[in-house]
Each structure stands twice: as C-alpha cells, then as structure tokens.
C-alpha cells in the first residue's frame, strides 16, 4: 500500500535500489562487450548520442514511449490483480489492424478528431475482446491464464496477418499491407516536433491507472484479488467479475497502444509486422514494481536503449538484440540488490 508518507520515506531507498542495479547492469554489460572485443564506451556513447543527445533521436525515443507506456498501464492493472496477461502481442496487433483498416475508410466521412477517437475506441475494444476467452476460462474454471493468453497471442498475431493478406489488403501496393491513413488524418503532432499526441494520452493513462490502483476502492479490490485470492473470497469480493474486468481493462489498454501506434506513427500495418512490445514491457513493469510513475522513467530508459541500440549495434557490430541482454542484466541485479537488502535488514527488523 503506498501512501504519501510511505513514498517520501521510501524514496531514498527506492532510488538506491534502482540506481545501483542500473549501474551494475551497465558495467557488466560493458564487460561482456569487452569480452566480445568491442569498445563498451563507444557503444554506450553512441546509444546516448543517438537516442537522447541528437534532436531527431530524442524525438524518436519519446515517440517510442507512447505504445510502451500504454502497454505498461495495461500490464500494471493485470499484474496487480494477480493476472498474468502475457497475450499483449496478439491484443496489440489485432487492435492495430482493426484501427488501420477502419481509419482510412472513415477518414472521408468523419472529422479527423472524431475518426481518431472512434478508431482508438475500436482498438481498445478489439484488444479487450481478444482477452475474453482467457478471462472466462480463468474466472470460471481457474485455468492458468499464462498458457491461454500466450496461445491467444499466437492466434492473434496469425489472424492479424491473415486479415491483412486476405481481407484488408490495399490493392495498390505490392507488399501486402492495409490502406494507408493520410498524414494529415493521423494523431496531431506536438509543437512542431515529430512526437504525436498519443504520448500525452499514454502518460495520462499510466497516471490514471496508478491513481486508480492506489486511491480507489476498485483498485484496492483488484490488489486484494492479486495478493490473496482466498482473502478476496473471504471478504466477499466478486472474484469472477473482478477477474474479467481486470482482463478487459488490461487488454483494452494494450489494444489502445496498438491503435495509437498505427494512428500516430505508421498509418498502416504491413503483413508480418510485429514489434513484440507486449513481452518487452513485462520486465519494465516488474522493474518499476507496478508503480506508474516509476514505469515512466523505466520506459524512457528502455526506449532510449531501443532507439539508440538499433543504430549503435550496427555501428559497433553487435547483434541488435544486445539491448535485451542489458535489460536481462538489469532484472538480475535488481533482484540481487533486493535480496541482499532484505537479508541485511532482517536481523535488525525482527
């Protein structure tokens, strides 16, 4: 339970528990680069320069945060409620395809703002719809949602491809993709940058989710469900209904992420496009301990690594997915610092 008093007291230790692992991950990651015969300073410097110091890179980094933040918001709802929604990729892609198909079709008839709102709502609904089967199975029969959401995710990504190739294909292009939404009909840009307004929506969503989880009765009910299901039953919470609502909210926010990415950045969806953000965000949410504000920081960090890492990898000559090695190291060290901290504290506390 986090309250203002808690947060102020815990801020220092929280910072320590985050900054130390980050530093350790960067150092060990650098050592691995050294072993591979690459210059770690060169790599990190290039990542930093491309992702944050150069204006174009910085805009790209911040733009990348929008879908990640929305997915994180969705995962916070699920994880806090003790639900492992690992089907984010399917929910994201199907919502992206739905909004990509709808937006150009409605663009002629609807005003821009209304069109965007309708498409985002449809995206969220499609995402939520794709979680209905795992949600019902979990609520009614207690079937493990890790398995069912992953399975639905495979089905969802495949279905998205099938839809693009067979049903929604733009006949004017050679590569199978949906019809493109004109740049003027996309989400408006902010202050003459390339950053679209979906970012504002995403930050709002994360903050609202955080407030919902910590300041409302509904959020507390979800937390009780997540922390101790038997206690939720004992306290008379409607466990089935809460489970289904948590699933729908989670998948809806992830669907919204798909819609925002299409409406803000791409304008269309190509066949076989799958950024796989859904699973990438999972460790970030854990790093942030389901805290909405902390998630914003971690998402910025991760976006910078992603954007900078893509070009830095090409330049230094390491695989592009080296970024994931850093994230994995970060998780390991975070757990390690946490463990050491707790075992150090125990004797004095008890």
């Amino acid at each position: 339970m986090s309250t203002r008093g808690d947060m102020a007291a815990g801020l220092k230790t929280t910072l320590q528990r985050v900054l130390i692992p980050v530093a350790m991950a960067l150092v060990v990651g650098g050592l691995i680069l050294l072993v591979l015969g690459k210059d770690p300073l060169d790599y990190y410097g290039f990542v930093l320069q491309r992702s944050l110091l150069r204006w174009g890179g910085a805009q790209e980094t911040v733009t990348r945060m929008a879908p990640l933040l929305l997915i994180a918001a969705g995962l916070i709802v699920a994880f806090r409620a003790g639900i492992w929604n690992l089907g984010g990729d399917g929910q994201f892609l199907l919502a992206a395809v739905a909004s990509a198909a709808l937006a150009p079709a409605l663009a002629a008839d609807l005003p821009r703002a209304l069109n965007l709102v309708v498409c985002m709502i449809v995206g969220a609904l499609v995402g939520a719809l794709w979680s209905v089967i795992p949600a019902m199975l979990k609520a009614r029969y207690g079937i493990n949602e890790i398995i069912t959401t992953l399975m639905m995710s495979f089905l969802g990504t495949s279905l998205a491809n099938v839809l693009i190739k067979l049903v929604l294909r733009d006949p004017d292009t050679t590569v199978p993709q949906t019809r493109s939404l004109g740049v003027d009909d996309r989400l408006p840009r902010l202050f003459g940058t390339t950053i679209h307004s979906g970012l504002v929506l995403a930050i709002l969503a994360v903050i609202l989710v955080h407030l919902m989880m910590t300041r409302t009765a509904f959020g507390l009910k979800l937390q009780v469900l997540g922390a101790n299901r038997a206690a939720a039953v004992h306290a008379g919470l409607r466990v089935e209904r809460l489970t289904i609502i948590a699933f729908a909210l989670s998948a809806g926010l992830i669907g919204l992420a798909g819609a925002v990415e299409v409406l803000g950045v791409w304008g269309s969806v190509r066949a076989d496009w799958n950024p796989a953000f859904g699973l990438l965000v999972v460790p970030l949410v854990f790093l942030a301990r389901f805290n909405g504000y902390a998630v914003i920081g971690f998402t910025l960090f991760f976006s910078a690594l992603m954007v900078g890492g893509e070009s830095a990898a090409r330049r230094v000559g390491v695989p592009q997915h080296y970024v994931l090695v850093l994230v994995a190291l970060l998780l390991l060290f975070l757990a390690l610092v946490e463990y050491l901290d707790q075992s150090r504290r125990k004797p004095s506390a008890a």
Partner: protein
Amino acid sequence: MINDATQAGQSTEAPRGAPIAVAALRQVTKRFPGIVALDRVSLEFHAGEIHVLLGENGAGKSTLVSLLAGMQRPDEGEIVIGGLPVVIDSPRRSMDLGIGAVFQRVLLVPSLTVIENLMLGGSWLRSLARGAALRRFDELSVLLGTRIDPDAPVSGLSLGEQQQVEIMRALWRDEKLLLLDEPTSMLTPQGVADLGRMMRRLKEKGVALILVTHKLLEAYEFGDRISVLRLGKVAGDIEPQRLQTMSEAERTETVIRLMFGAADAGAVPDKGHEGELAILLGRKLRRANSVDRSKPATLSARALVTMPDFAETPLHAVSFELWAGEVLGIAGVDGNGQKHLAEVLAGQRSLRQGRLELAGSDITWGRVPERRQRGIRYVTDDRLGEGTVGTFSVATNLVLKEIGALPFWRHGISDWPLIHQSAREQILRNDIRTTSELTPVGKLSGGNVQKVLLARELDAEANVAILNKPTYGLDLHNQRLALDRIVAAAARGVAVIVISTDLDELLEISDRVGVMFQGSLAGIVENDDDAGGKVRRLMTGAAAE
C-alpha cells in the same frame, strides 16, 4: 486396539534403578533473528521415562524438538546421544541415531497405504522390501498394541490411527527416543486414552519419551518428569520422586510458578493469571446464564446441505437456532464439517439445500457483503491464508471487508488519512502490538493478527458472530484475551457461534454445545455439569440422548 496380554516384541529393556540418559542437551543455545529461542538449555532424557516439556507458545519447546529431530542445528552447546556428542544435521541423521519424531500435523501421504508410507523412508537404491517391512510392522504392532491393516490406504484411517502410523514410522528404525509434539491436540478423548496406553507400553519397554504439551492435566496424567520451559530457558524440573509425592495442588502451584516466573511465588494463583490457569486446568469460568429463548431466534438454520468439496466434509442436514446474547459452542474432531458450516453462515459458500433466516427474514441467498451489512461476522481460523492479506498494512486489513463502503470510501475514492486514523484508534483500543498502522499484518505475531481480526469482526454493528477456532495457535495470554472478547460480545447481545476442537474451552464459555460428526450436528446439549460427558459421547458418533 490395545492388547495388553501380548508383551512380546524385541527388548531394549532398560535396567531398573538408576536412570540412564539416552539423550542430553548440554548448554544448548539457539538464536533466531531478534530472539533467543533456547538459552543455554541443559536437559537429560532417560530410558523408560515420559518426560513432559511444558511451556507457553514461544517458550522454546518446538525449537528443542526440531533440534533433536535434525531440522535445526544449535548455535552453541552440544547434543549427547548415548554418552557421545553428536551433530544432528538432518532428519535422516536423527533417525539413524534412534530418534523418532511425531509432529502436530499428520505427515503421511493419504493416497498410499500404511505399509507404503512406512517404507518411504528407505534408501534410494534399495528396492522396497515388502516382506521385511511387514515383519517390522508386526513387531511394532505388538509393541504398541495396535491393530491396523497394513494395506489400508491412509486416507481411510481415523486421525488417531494415522497418528499411530506416525508413531510406527518414528520408531521404524530404532526405538530409543520418541518425540511427541502436542500429540493430543487433534484426538478425541478416546484417542487420547489410547495414546496414553501406548506411551506407557513404550515406557515399559525402555523407550525414552518426550511429550511436548501446554496442557497441565496431560502433564500430570502421563508425565514421570516435568520440565518447564519459559522464554527459552529451563525454568525448572520436577523429578519423578518429587512428582509422585506431591498433591495436585502442590504440583499446580509449582508449575504455575515456573511457567509465569518467580515473581508470582507465594501469590499463586494470583489475579493476573486466573484466566490462564483456567485454560491450563480446563476449569470452568462459567458466566451468568441469561439467554432469553422465549423470543424468536436471531439466526435459524434449517436442514443445511452443502456440495462435497475437495477433502472437506460437506454439511448434511444441519439445523439449529441461535438467540441473541447466546454462545453456541460447536465441538467435534477437526474435519467433520465445521469449516463448511462457518462458511455457509458467513455467505462464503453456497448452499445446495436448506434455508437460513436472520431475525425472521430469509438470507439464504445473501452473499458476504449483504450478510455483513446485516451484522453477520466471521472470524476464520485461517488467519493468514484468507483472513488477512499478509503484505497489506494493518490499516488496510482492518477495513478489508468494507472496501468501497462509507465512511472510508466516498464515491469509490479511498480516504487513506481517515482509514489510517481509524486504524490507529483500533490499535490502541484493542491493544494490537505493532510498530504502526502501516506495518504489513504478516509481520505481526499470531496473537496480534487475531486481535486485528477480532477488532474487524466484533464491531459495534455485529449481530451474529461465527468464530472458527478463535484460540488456535495462540499463547495462553492471547487465548484468554480472545475468549474474553467473545464473552464480552455475547454480553452485548451478539449471537455467537464458537467452533473449536478444544472442548474445555467450549465448556467454559458456551451456553449450549453442539457436536459436529461427519457433517451432521449430532446433538446440542445444554452446558450443565455433565455436559462434558455427553459431548464426548456425541463426538465419537454415539447417538444423542
């Protein structure tokens, strides 16, 4: 079951006269973070003697048992077996040394047969030698005077029989030293009598027995030597010779003095410990009987039936009535449907058939929130499993069943300052020992977790309170506090149901006592002077008079 005629069986007969120390602790200290569980404890355990370890919860009894059973290692001091210092670094080593342990909970595999369970301890590589195992089984059956079918599945045995199998397993390798950790807590009176006979047979065969208990009467009945532990130290011993010459009053005075410290010497039993004493002795602190049953009943249950659930006895046409200000005790051996009864009344479990009425109106289909709103409260026995969320603060747990309701939530928005302020008041009023209202409830001691639950459930709006094993696992002081709060609630006019396996406790506080047997209410008796006898008969399944 007991066969005293056959005294055969292999003999590790102890020479009479001078007692031999089978095992000894020398200056043993064991620390856990923040506490010294055992502080330079020296004890000797003799062949052919039942050595009772008496003490409150937290006195160090269980730690001592776990050291001998090889589950913990001492920080300082040594354990001596047969005259030689040994290191007991695993339960297997403990068994190799001839030490067998029987714990409070049954640790058998229910789906396997008796003989299969007994063969489980063998080495990995050896094939299961059924013939040899059966021979040993027969030997032990004669030794203990038990008659159990070796091929019966454990799940079909009564708890008493399961405990006999546990004792066989403890003696399987050798029969030097047998540890019994609160062995009577789950037994019927008949089962306790059988266990007593079994212990005496083993004693005659020269086995050293250690009986851990917090019940004074058991200590007198079975013990040859009594050692009292207090705060990790041996507060004192009563030698066999002395024990035999003392009157019961003298014994009690000595033990009470040892258990509660020398400060109380001469003033025993003083006012401060009268309540604890009542629990120790199973004496009645009867309260004035003033229930008016001429009015309509507050709660009436008619032919309640539940669906069978995994490993739980369902209800089978349970009917009773409960009046305001009354305490109805529900006795019975654990697992005879008590949990279903409590959950059905609380609204946590749905009925298959039957009808529930509260003050004349039908509440059969009301769920937990509706019933709670009408004043029905449930204190579960599974305090950390379902009663609280261990990682949440004391404050949150105090309002766990009110989430979303006024005054702590307005339009669904949490008023944390108000929740915390109210929690601070509750903590003061109920003497909950916690560093603050923000402390996770899982960090509190069992007694304080129970205080949180009692504060949450026995509030001013309570009409009907169901308490499942309200004193289970608490030390004497907290048992007393819990019982006092229950009696106080009844005095305020709350209709109370107390489910417990501890009959003495029920006889102390109840107006009537009902007995659950195999999912039915075998009978309800008025708590008069011979209620104890009637209840015991009902517990064994004998028909109600």
